[in-house]
């Protein structure tokens, strides 16, 4: 609650700041300070301290899980701003506006992690989506960026329609929007609610880019300015997953046996499509787009299993996946083009950057001692509670993912740079990247650092 209101205010503040503050580094500092404030407020709320006392008529509910998820997102966003501030400047002249939009999206993120009514869920998703459409098209003179924004908008509207229709069916069955379990026998078995459930499943699957509703993802991620792709693929995605889990845990847990097989099917298709297609990509950026689909397949296991392991796993996943992906995209913004060859021999020229990148990719592939390993472990353990074959598929797919992640590591460490141009990284950037990488490793060694927040 604290963070939700303040982030909306901060958005307005930043939008106005471009009028008064001409120096971009001040704006950047302001945004960072704002984020720090949000983080502190969120932590305060985690300890029971509220800035505002507002009666929301039970439409919002910030439990520990939501607050911890918010904390992870805010921390990731902090690293994102630190690492990507420079790249954001290059997108276009409206630096302060981009930041303002990010803060508006933040408000939306807090709504979807803390909703208690489907109306708020809808509102939150729209508050996230509309600024994202703008950010996708923010590179105005770039045709690809424009195309991506249009595609995103059209397909996004389509899914919003599904979402609304689903909510309407839901209302028809229950007579309210409350996101809780209904034990009313006329509701439990009703076809209206079933239809609503499935439509909500489709819509949420679309938002988190789960196959077969993922088609927008590669095109949009590839076309959008890299710095915003990074944001979409990480922080937004994990927030939507938190909403996804909350929806099916709180609202549809009685229909578990109906939707679980469908989710299992989606998991398999998503893992297959994400991983198999990623193998073929020649551009690292596009490969990452598919890899984000593949990772979504893993995160979907949290929805599939809905148990203690999967919920803890999702938190770990959110932290390790976001940080690693943000780090990789941040490096990508410094690259000439996004071909794998661009990474050739990076280890010799930029040992710090290469080492950090290697850690990020190891984490994404789920190699032990990194956060990504534990995250995958939790997910697979959660799935094992129900189906062995699903866990086996997940493991096989994780093995395939090693292929395309390691291609970059191989390029950095075992290939020689044939081109004379190699990217230059500021010293501060390399060190920050290394710190991010160390946090990813730390997550793999001391997961209690995050999971502990859930219980104390």
């Amino acid at each position, binding site marked *: 609650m604290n963070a939700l209101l303040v982030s909306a205010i901060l958005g307005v503040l930043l939008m106005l700041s471009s009028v008064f503050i001409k120096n971009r580094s001040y704006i950047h500092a302001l945004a960072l300070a704002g984020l720090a404030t949000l983080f502190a407020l969120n932590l305060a709320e985690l300890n029971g301290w509220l800035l505002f006392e507002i009666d929301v008529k039970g439409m919002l509910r910030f439990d520990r899980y939501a607050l911890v998820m918010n904390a992870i997102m805010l921390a990731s966003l902090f690293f994102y701003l630190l690492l990507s501030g420079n790249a954001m400047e290059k997108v276009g002249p409206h630096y302060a506006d981009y930041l303002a939009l990010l803060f508006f999206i933040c408000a939306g993120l807090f709504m979807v992690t803390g909703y208690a009514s489907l109306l708020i869920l809808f509102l939150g998703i729209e508050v996230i989506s509309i600024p994202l459409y703008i950010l996708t098209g923010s590179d105005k003179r770039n045709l690809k960026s424009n195309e991506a924004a249009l*595609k995103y908008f*059209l*397909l996004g509207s*389509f899914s919003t329609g599904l979402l609304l229709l689903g909510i309407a069916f839901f209302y028809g069955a229950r007579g309210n929007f409350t996101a809780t379990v209904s034990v009313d026998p006329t509701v439990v078995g009703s*076809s209206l609610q*079933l*239809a609503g459930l*499935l439509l909500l499943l*489709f819509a949420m699957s*679309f938002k988190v880019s789960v196959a*077969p*509703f993922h*088609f*927008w993802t*590669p*095109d949009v991620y590839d076309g959008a300015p890299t710095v915003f792709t990074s944001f979409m693929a990480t922080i937004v995605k994990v927030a939507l997953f938190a909403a996804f889990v909350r929806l099916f845990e709180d609202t549809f847990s009685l229909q578990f046996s*109906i939707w679980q097989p*469908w989710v299992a099917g989606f998991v398999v298709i998503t893992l*297959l*499509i994400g991983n*198999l*297609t990623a*193998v*073929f990509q020649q551009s690292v950026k596009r490969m990452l787009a598919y890899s984000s689909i593949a990772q979504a397949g893993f995160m979907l296991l949290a929805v599939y299993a809905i148990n203690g392991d999967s919920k803890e796993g999702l938190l770990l996943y959110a932290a390790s996946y976001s940080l690693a992906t943000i780090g990789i995209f941040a490096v990508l913004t410094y690259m000439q083009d996004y071909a794998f060859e661009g990474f050739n021999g990076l280890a010799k020229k930029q040992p710090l950057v290469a080492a950090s990148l290697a850690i990020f990719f190891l984490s994404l592939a789920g190699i032990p001692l990194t956060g990504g390993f534990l995250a995958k472990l939790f997910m697979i353990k959660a799935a094992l509670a129900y189906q062995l074959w699903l866990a086996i598929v997940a493991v096989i797919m994780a093995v*395939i993912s090693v*292929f395309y992640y390691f291609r970059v590591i191989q390029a950095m460490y075992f290939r020689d740079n044939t081109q004379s141009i190699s990217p230059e990284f500021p010293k501060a950037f390399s060190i920050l990247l290394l710190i991010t990488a160390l946090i990813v490793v730390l997550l793999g060694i001391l997961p209690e650092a995050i999971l502990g927040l859930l219980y104390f």
Partner: protein
Amino acid sequence: MQSSFQLAFLIPLLPLIGFLINGLGRNWLSKQWSGLIGAGTILGSFLISLFIFQAVKAGQGEVISYFDFIRMEGLRIPFAFQIDALSSLFLLIITGIGFLIHVYSISYMHEESSTSFARYFSYLNLFVFSMLLLVLGSNYVVLFIGWEGVGLCSYLLIGFWIKNQQYTKAANKAFIMNRIGDLAFLLAIFWLIIKTGSASFQEVFDFIQANQGTSKFSVTDITIVTLLLFIGATGKSAQLPLYTWLPDAMAGPTPVSALIHAATMVTAGIYMIARSNIIYSLAPLTLSIISWIGLATAFLAATIALRQYDIKKVLAYSTVSQLGFMFLALGSGAYIAAVFHVLTHAFFKALLFLGSGSVIHAMGGEQDIRKMGGLSGKLKITYATFLIGCLAIAGLPPLSGFFSKDAILLSAFLHQPLQYGIALFTAFLTAFYMFRLLFLTFHGSFRGTPEQQAHLHESPALMTIPLVILAILSVAGGWIGIPAVLLQDADWLGNFLAPVLGSTTHEVSHATEWLLMSLSVGGVLLTIGFAWFLFRHYRATESRGILRFFENKWYVDQLYDRVIVQPIFYLGRILKEWVEPRIIDALVNGVGKTVQLAGRQIRFLQSGQIGSYVLLMVMAMVVVLLVQFFIRK
């Protein structure tokens, strides 16, 4: 906790710190500093060990727990040290002799570059650290950590001169042979953990004593565990069939050999079995196997030592042989005698090795005793101390070796007279080959090159002082365990170790004991005389018959090569040339090709057209809705 025990953690920690400083700072440290740090940390450990030894002597030992090393459901393995009579005695041996060897090394290794000098001392410190951990651990897991550390360090030190391919091979051999034993040890630990739910000595022993013979821990369990532990010990302590690495381990610098043979490493197996004596006492079958294997090793190694010409090889086989004696004692249930022999052997074997190092140093690296001779004139201190070492190992009273060997022979006599007979004969062989070595090296006329003769000199004080100290210990070290037949109430060691190893009371008349003693002393004297007669003047002779067999070490290396190594190579070739390309590669590439093919098909779905995306999504939704509403209903 007794206040003096609070320092116990420093005993292994100091060498570890020394290892870190020398290891990390090897490019910057001068030789003086490396040596000072290397030897100083061990001296510190030695002083604390003395302190703790005093405390143990005054009272009982105890277990000090530091933190949980492994904690999971149903199993807790603390990182804890056990301080009692047995471990405190070993601490003294390891740090005391270890310190002398460190001091000696400073001079012996002075020709190395400062980087490899520091590297040498860092390994040496790590070696001592591992051994201390091994001895201090209060459970099998901590013991195993030290056990593995010792194995690693022996590998590093045997292959210290990494540029020599032969030495590297010797290091590999040591490591691999040890690994074979380690595997058995590891299995024993797992077996114990599964059966008893703990790895701590006290808990395991209590459990086994309480449940022996029941379904919780059957007689078979006891036999299997003790046998597996013993196989582990045969690797580390160089017993049949895993002893061949120890003679090859001579490749390392001579002080390292002294360290491996006297203070650390090879005594680990003895220590482990002595530590587990409570289980072993319940396993008569295993004990009998141990005694026979120990005896066979003692005899075999002694015969090989008869015909070796490398000064260090003779000593190496003598170590294997003496270790065999110790295992014979263990197998006879005389744990105290075994530990006693570890102690005295540590003194005189360290002395002999360091003495041989002094000889090699004087000879400019020459190790072949056929090219030595008449060195007693030039190397007076080395000769005198070496002579004491030989007398001690031969077992002449009142030197230390006499008392410990006598204890072993007595226990063998009580246990199994046939074993006694062989052991006694082996003891004569020991005297024979040791004095052959002494006479060939120090007596007669010099047989080396004139340059070597001109180079001959006594070693510097840093090398001779440890020799003198060790010589004194070799003489007097046995007086802590004088049997009652010679002096009433003088068996201090037996009383000291009794709480851990159990006391041994002999049902044997004094007359018999006198007889046994005079038999062995008389025999040894005769043997020495015989050796003097044969080797006072060296005559090159071609070995014939059985001697040739001994000279070639019973062809055991060749046998292993034929029976084990070659078949494994053959199997490896099959795997490499046939299985890997045709099966593994085919499988892997097949999977890869399938993935590629599938990926290529799926990629076409991503057409870039919004219309087709929407169509595909709608199709998916329609399928789900139809199935849900009409089929799954």
